[in-house]
Structures are given as structure tokens and as C-alpha cells.
């Protein structure tokens, strides 16, 4: 019995890890390609949730959960072209400051538009409740999220590994100077990466809005976990982030099963241990420009 309960926590942790992945993958990609730690990433997650809640008042759940991330992704294009782009070549402190400032501006803007009190949305009736598969209890809604994450993940992987776009991006992570000498400008690629990254964050926000408190500071809340995942996974590695996200979800579940008080601390202990053994993260590659 005890073992089954533990297994249930492990499976639940994997589901939760899938959701962390939506936020962390974009953060990792933007850092790997552009060398920018996007402290405003959480703001796009929050915007995704707020735009989703706003849209559900007019459209249904289905349309809102698609349109919100797309709208935020378009905002991502503006963000890259008018803000981030100015900082690729400058001191990293500047991009940290500007994205940190932007995160505060975004949070305050949300407060001005939607107010400080949380807003709420509901799960559609058909996705309410749980299904029991074997001995395991799954929330229907989280299974839906898991399916969406899987589709997004396959899409991103194919984009990065099976297209010429992906080849340029991966080359850009390792040897931007070589890419430049071949006459390829990385900036349009960066625009797309940022668009994809913030779009994924917004997708996470939209899907999590019905099951979490949608409040102005929600972006800051998610950033800590997202950073932990990126650091554990290692830079430049797609699978590193995937494994780290799932691992963080599972470790938290197991910790809560045995020692609930250690639940939230466990992911930091995990990060600490991983960095002790592998300072570059689990699958982090040696990236020359970051050494």
C-alpha cells in the first residue's frame, strides 16, 4: 500500500513537472541563445493568465486558452524588437536590470488594469473531477495540461532538431561568431525564440488560471521554480530542462509524501546537490560564450 501511495506521488510529480516545463523551457532558450536572463518571463506567464480570464468572459474556455498565448506571443515580438535587442551586445547587468524593471512595470500595470484583488476562471465541466487509472487518481484537467505540454514539447523538439531554423538556433547557442561569419543574422531567430518562449509561459498561465490564484504577483511566484529547473537542467540542453522539470516535480512529491515540511525546500536541496556534482547542470553543455 505504502509503495502504491509513493508511486502515485511520483506520477503526480511528473504531471506537475510538465507544467513547470512550459515556463522553464522558454526561459532556458532565451538565455541560451541571447545570453539574457529574462527576469520578465514571469510577467508573461501572469499576462497569459489574465488575458485568458478576461477572454473567458466573452469566449469559451477553448478559444481563450488558444488566443491568450498567441496574443502574448505577439507582445513578445514587440518585447524582443524594442527592448531585448538593444542588450545582446551590452553588459549582462543591463539586461538584468531592464527585464527586472519590466517585470515590476508589468505587475503594476496588471494591478492598474485588473485591480489588486484576484480574478478567477472555472474549469470547463467536462474536465472537472478525477479519473482513476489502475490505482492512480488523476485530475482530468491536469491530464489535459499534460497532453498539451507533450504536444508543445514535440513541436519545439522538431523545430529545433529537424528544421533549418533549429540548426541555426543550435549553432547560434554554441558558436554565434561562426554563424555570423556565414552571413546569418541571429536577430530574426532571436525574435522567434522570444516569441515562442513567452508564448509558452503564457500558455502555462492560461492553463493554470482556473486552478491557482490569479493575482498580480503570480509572475514573481513562478520565477523561482523556473530558475531552479533551468539551473538543474543545464544551459543549452533541451532534454536537460525536460528532465530537470520532471525531476523537480517528482522530488517535491516524494518529499511531501515522507517529510511534508521539507516539501518546498527539497527542490533547492536537489539544485544544491546537482550543482555540487555537475556545476553546469545535468545535461548542460560547455558553452564557450558563457565560460
Amino acid at each position: 500500500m505504502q509503495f502504491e501511495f509513493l508511486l502515485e506521488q511520483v506520477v503526480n510529480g511528473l504531471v506537475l513537472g510538465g507544467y513547470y516545463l512550459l515556463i522553464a523551457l522558454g526561459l532556458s532558450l532565451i538565455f541560451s541563445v541571447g545570453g539574457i536572463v529574462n527576469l520578465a518571463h514571469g510577467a508573461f506567464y501572469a499576462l497569459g493568465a489574465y488575458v485568458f480570464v478576461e477572454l473567458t468572459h466573452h469566449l469559451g474556455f477553448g478559444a481563450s486558452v488558444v488566443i491568450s498565448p498567441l496574443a502574448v506571443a505577439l507582445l513578445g515580438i514587440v518585447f524582443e524588437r524594442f527592448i531585448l535587442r538593444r542588450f545582446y551586445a551590452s553588459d549582462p547587468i543591463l539586461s538584468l536590470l531592464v527585464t527586472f524593471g519590466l517585470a515590476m512595470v508589468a505587475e503594476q500595470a496588471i494591478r492598474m488594469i485588473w485591480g489588486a484583488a484576484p480574478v478567477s476562471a472555472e474549469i470547463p465541466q467536462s474536465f472537472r473531477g478525477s479519473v482513476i487509472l489502475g490505482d492512480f487518481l488523476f485530475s482530468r484537467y491536469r491530464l489535459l495540461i499534460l497532453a498539451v505540454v507533450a504536444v508543445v514539447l514535440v513541436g519545439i523538439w522538431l523545430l529545433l532538431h529537424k528544421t533549418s531554423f533549429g540548426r541555426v538556433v543550435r549553432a547560434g547557442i554554441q558558436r554565434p561568431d561562426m554563424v555570423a561569419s556565414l552571413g546569418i543574422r541571429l536577430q530574426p531567430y532571436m525574435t522567434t525564440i522570444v516569441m515562442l518562449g513567452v508564448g509558452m509561459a503564457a500558455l502555462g498561465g492560461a492553463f493554470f488560471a482556473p486552478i491557482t490564484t490569479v493575482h498580480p504577483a503570480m509572475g514573481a511566484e513562478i520565477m523561482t521554480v523556473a530558475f531552479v529547473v533551468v539551473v538543474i537542467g543545464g544551459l543549452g540542453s533541451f532534454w536537460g530542462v525536460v528532465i530537470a522539470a520532471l525531476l523537480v516535480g517528482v522530488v517535491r512529491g516524494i518529499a511531501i509524501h515522507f517529510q511534508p515540511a521539507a516539501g518546498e525546500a527539497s527542490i533547492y536541496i536537489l539544485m544544491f546537490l546537482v550543482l555540487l556534482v555537475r556545476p553546469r547542470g545535468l545535461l548542460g553543455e560547455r558553452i564557450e560564450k558563457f565560460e
Partner: protein
Amino acid sequence: MIRTSRRTLLKASAALAGASALGFPAIARAQAEKIRIGHLTPLTGFLGVIGGYAQLGVKLAAEEINQSGGILGKQIDLLSEDSINPATAATKAQRMLEQDGAVVLLGEISSASSLTIMQVAERNKKVFFSTGARSDALRGKNCNKYSFHCDIPNTVMVNAVGTALSQKGMVKGKKFFTLTADYIFGHDLLKAAKAFFGTHEANLIGDELIATDVTDFSPYLLKVRQAKPDVVCCNLAGNQVTNLVKQYAEFGLPYPLVGFNLNTGDAWAAGAGNLSGTWPTVWYHTLDNPTSKAFVAAFGKKYGKPPENHAWIDYVTLKLLAEAINTTKSTDSGELISYFEKQSQFDIGKARKAYFRSWDHQLVQEAYPFTVKPKEQMKDQWDMLVLGDAVPAANDPLEQIYPTREQNPCEMKA
């Protein structure tokens, strides 16, 4: 692309995170012709949402008092800030009393922060009204002469809900599983709940202490399912409640969810269709009496939405404080304390008047259990609760639901 040192980036991230935690306090200087009153409440973090309401309430009270001539003929200069955390709350309280010249302090929701402000108040010999903190211990073993407690304590919330549950046959012989906020407030609430279970022959089969920054409750819900209780009981606070309620509806567990603590703001945040069960409240904007109605109308006119219970409590506290200062014609701590200790009665927008109990400085007042209105019957998004009858019943003494001197002893130093 440039060469970027990962280490530099990490260091800078840490520095920024640190800077954001400090915040930037507004600086203001005392003005001789005004009476300065300090107000602290959490505006950020897991209690930030309901703290926002508290600030709106106290500002409205100050405005109304000033429009009707102020106190002792002087205007109130209200200094209202984010208390952030227990350590910062104490620092800000000290600064308000020492540098800004505040004559009295009020506010707070977090029991942990309230405790540190109480200590500052005692050290400076200034009166502090802890408006929204509910831990029994603040009125009991941590009590002091300078601190007054306006919200209902944990024991009262447990009694209000427990009585309603007992009437529905949901207590005696039932198996309870509790989810408890892991800080002084939650621990204290669990203690009160255990006492109630003990005297009403209910069994507590499991309890989980949950950190205040937890947003995903799924691992805990799995543990609830494994324990197979009859009733799940929420002893959480602030955003925790909202997240639990939403995720409980998501998983659709078959056990009824009830709670010993809820603020209307958390219920509104959870939204219609997510909340169910029986909960306690200290005040709701549909209460039918002139004081309450006038407040709801004024609040709605100024802010365009109905007030939450923390808006109400900070509003009535500043009002009764103004009344006390005007009556005693003094802002002296000793004068005010002896006025309140005479158990002077105040109209706080409820059917029965309230008073501060002399031996523990608790504002003794009615409380209410509530259930949730079906979504199709709600007039608007704020019209969520169906209030039960006030407890205690109209003929019973008000103090009946409050902890006794034996249960929650308070020794005040002279």
C-alpha cells in the same frame, strides 16, 4: 552576441532579488497640527490581497472622520504601509512611533507580524489595535496591556463552524483530515480545532502542515484521498485557501470540504463554482443594519465594489478609536486603555454592540457561519455567501463562544 559570465549573471540576479525584498518606504515628516496614526498591513505575499482591502477600509474611515471635523479638532494624518513580514513590520512600527510621531498604531492580518508589532507597542508604551490577526495566543500567552484585538480569534471561528457542522451531524464520530498553515496562526487554529474535536467526539485522522508559499496542493490532495476521511477541514490562510479550494474542486474528491478560517476576499478569489462547504466569517456586506449599510454604500461609492471583511474591521477600528479619543479628550495610552477596559460599547455594524473584554482586550462580538450560494442564485460576483444565524444566539451571552480565562490565560504586566 557577447561573452557573458554566468557567474556575473547569477550574482546580479541575487542582488536584484534582494533589492526587491527591501521595498522603498515612503518618507513623510510629522506635521504639528495633525494627529498621526500608523497603519500596517500586508500588501504583498499570501495575505496581500485581503491586506489591500484593509487599506481601502482604513483610508475611507480617516477620510470620513476628517470630513466631520477630525479628532480633538485636528485632522488625522494616516500613514499606511505594507508590513511585508514580521521583522519589517516591527521595524516599521518602531519607526512610525519614534520618528513619524504616530500616537497609536493599528492594522495587520498576519498573526506572526502582529506579534512583533505588539512587542514594539509594549516597549514604546503606545496602543496597538491588531485588527485582522486571529491567533488565540496573541490574546493569551502573548497578550500585553497595550495591545487590543479586533478580529474574532481562532477559537471563535472553530466554535462558529463547529456548531453549524454539529447541527448537520457532521462532527460526532466523524473522521477529520486537516490541512494547516505552517506558521503561528495555523498552529494555533489546529490547537483550537483539536480541542473542539476532543470535546465533540470527532477523530482527527491526519494533519498536514503546509508552508505559506505553496501554490500546488496536488500532493496533499493525494494524501487526503489515501486517508479516506469523512470531512476535510481547511486551516489555511490567504491565497492558500483560494488555491486549495480551486484545486479541491478540480480533483473533485468525494469528501465534504469545510474550513475554520476564511476571509471573504479568499472566497471571491476562488470564484463561483469552486467554493462549497461551511465556513466562518466575522462580517459580510449583506448584514442588515444601518451602520453596516452606510459603510457598504460609502465604500461602494468610493471604490466601486463591496468591502471585504478586512476593509470593514480596519474601518470600524479607526472609527471606534476616534470615538474613544474624542470621549477621553486624550491620545494618552493610559487614558485610552482605561477607557477601553471599562468595556465601553461600540456599534460595529452588527445586531449586537461589541466591547473590548477587560482581561484580554478581545473585541467581543457576534460571528457567523456561512454556506455558499448556488451559482445561478448569485446576483453578482460578490453575492456568494449565505450567512447562517449569528453565534451566539441572541439570548446567549456574547462571551459564550470566546475562550475562557482558563482556556487561554492572559497575564498583563501593569
